[in-house]
């Protein structure tokens, strides 16, 4: 195992921290360290994950209350230095709430929590987060009530023009249409990166697709991250 250590930020209401930790440890071959939300100093600055869950109960707006915690302030600072940061589900919501990523994740179009398997078309394999996924279609589950990606028309155009969209909800064959859009996201967006290309947010859960008993596309995702720490 490599000596490198990846940081995982933990809030009292995080509930995918353990699952993520296992996926990272097993499929990135690194050590991991949990960072409690009120820590002000991150020892390991090579790569930071923000896991899914309900950080502070997801009251107000999902992810909003979490942005005020010391650890996130540190994440914001480190993001400016180019440290790779990955937010999954609630992590993505936190990243948009603290403006490290554009847009906002509002209520699913059907007003319900949705848990199901989704196919995702990988849009951009130049990004470090998706280089291993090679413009393929992958299958990760989603489980959220606020995953409906929204942003202004201009911002959306900029995101698309800059190739910042990484994952889009699609059919098994990669067709992107209304039918394959589970939550109403603009342009079927499931995951984006920032302009500087070091911050990724995605609603689906790759850490729930690393098991020999289920789907394994998540393994490719984590394997691909190995080269960037």
């Amino acid at each position, binding site marked *: 195992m490599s000596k490198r250590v990846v940081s995982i930020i933990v809030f009292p209401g995080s509930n995918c921290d353990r699952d993520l930790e296992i996926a990272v440890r097993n499929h990135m071959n690194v050590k991991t360290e949990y960072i409690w939300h009120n820590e002000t100093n991150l020892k390991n600055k090579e790569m930071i994950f923000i896991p899914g869950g309900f950080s502070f*109960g997801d*009251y107000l707006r999902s992810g909003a209350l979490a942005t005020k915690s010391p650890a996130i302030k540190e994440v914001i600072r480190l993001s400016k230095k180019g440290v790779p940061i990955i937010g999954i589900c609630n992590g993505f919501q936190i990243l948009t709430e603290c403006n490290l990523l554009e847009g906002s994740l509002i209520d699913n179009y059907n007003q319900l929590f949705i848990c199901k398997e989704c196919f995702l078309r990988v849009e951009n394999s130049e990004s470090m987060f998706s280089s291993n996924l090679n413009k393929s279609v992958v299958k990760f589950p989603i489980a959220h009530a606020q995953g409906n990606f929204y942003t202004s028309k201009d911002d959306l155009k900029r995101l698309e023009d800059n190739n910042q969209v990484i994952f889009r909800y699609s059919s098994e064959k990669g067709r992107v249409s209304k039918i394959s859009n589970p939550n109403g996201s603009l342009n079927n967006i499931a995951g984006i990166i920032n302009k500087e290309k070091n911050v990724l947010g995605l609603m689906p859960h790759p850490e729930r697709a690393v098991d020999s008993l289920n789907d394994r596309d998540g393994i490719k995702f984590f394997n691909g991250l190995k080269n960037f720490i």
Partner: protein
Amino acid sequence: MIYRVYINFKKGILDPESEAIMKTISRMGFSSIKKVSKGKFFDVEISKTKKGLKDLEKISSDLLSNPVIENFKIIKK
């Protein structure tokens, strides 16, 4: 005609959301903020008839609010 229907929790009902928000505000160090309590409102456009207002009252109690835990108040905008 536009009316605003205000909805808030009945007295004594647990409001975990307001509590969580208040905790965060304190953690952020804003000592001048003493208490937060949340409510919602609906701006409803109705036709200018007697029936309009009656219908509004009906949907306010039956649909917009949950009378078991919430109160509502209709105010002309």
